[in-house]
């Protein structure tokens, strides 16, 4: 059951992006309907939370380490006081972090910090997960931009 998923092109009509879009739209509709209306900053936070949650729930990514790590991080966000941003470093070490090997390029450590769950990955997996994460990020940005364009016209 170790199907290698070939990297698809970022086709907005592919099933992976549709799942992601669907999840985000549902969350957005929920946020919009919420009453009483929350403060602007709270809404921004909720929307950003929904963005990352839908990335993690897209069908391509649900099997990925980064999406599980991201969901874990999102749960921590929700439990914290409002006002904390993405830079909070409190994390539960589930996997012993693998120190960078000398053969890795210098930037691998930075990449490990950027990609959710990157600390515990081997270099080879890190590259794969990064590619997947970048594609989901890009799709999310395109989705949000499309929504803004659609609603402002």
């Amino acid at each position: 059951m170790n199907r290698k998923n070939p990297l698809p092109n970022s086709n907005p009509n592919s099933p992976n992006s549709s799942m992601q879009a669907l999840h985000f739209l549902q969350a957005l509709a929920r946020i919009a309907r919420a009453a009483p209306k929350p403060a602007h900053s709270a809404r921004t936070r909720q929307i950003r939370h929904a963005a990352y949650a839908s990335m993690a729930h897209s069908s391509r990514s649900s099997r990925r380490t980064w999406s599980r790590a991201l969901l874990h991080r999102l749960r921590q966000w929700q439990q914290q006081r409002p006002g904390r941003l993405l830079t909070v470093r409190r994390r539960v070490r589930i996997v012993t972090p693998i120190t960078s090997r000398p053969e890795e390029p210098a930037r691998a450590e930075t990449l490990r910090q950027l990609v959710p769950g990157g600390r515990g990955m081997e270099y080879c997996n890190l590259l794969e997960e990064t590619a997947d994460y970048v594609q989901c990020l890009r799709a999310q940005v395109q989705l949000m931009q499309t929504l803004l364009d659609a609603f402002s016209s």
Partner: protein
Amino acid sequence: MSSRRSRSRRSSNSSRITEEQIVELVSKLQDLLPEARSRSSERVSASRVLQDTCNYIRDLQQEVDDLSERLADMLASTEMTSAQAAIIRSLLM
């Protein structure tokens, strides 16, 4: 999942993860970058690709923040009109 593999095994005989695989993965990352179109034929160093990828990820995350803010503006400025609700409903079908 990878914590059970001993370090010595990884460093002595990395037959499972070949150099070629690493190169291929790095080139896939390179293709994802926005500059990929201008230099699709040449192979830049892995270090450069990683650095560009880090910058790209930061940019994308920043864009998500900005777009979240703008979406919040949009939701705040217009009450969810019936037209917008209809758009959302039609997209969800």
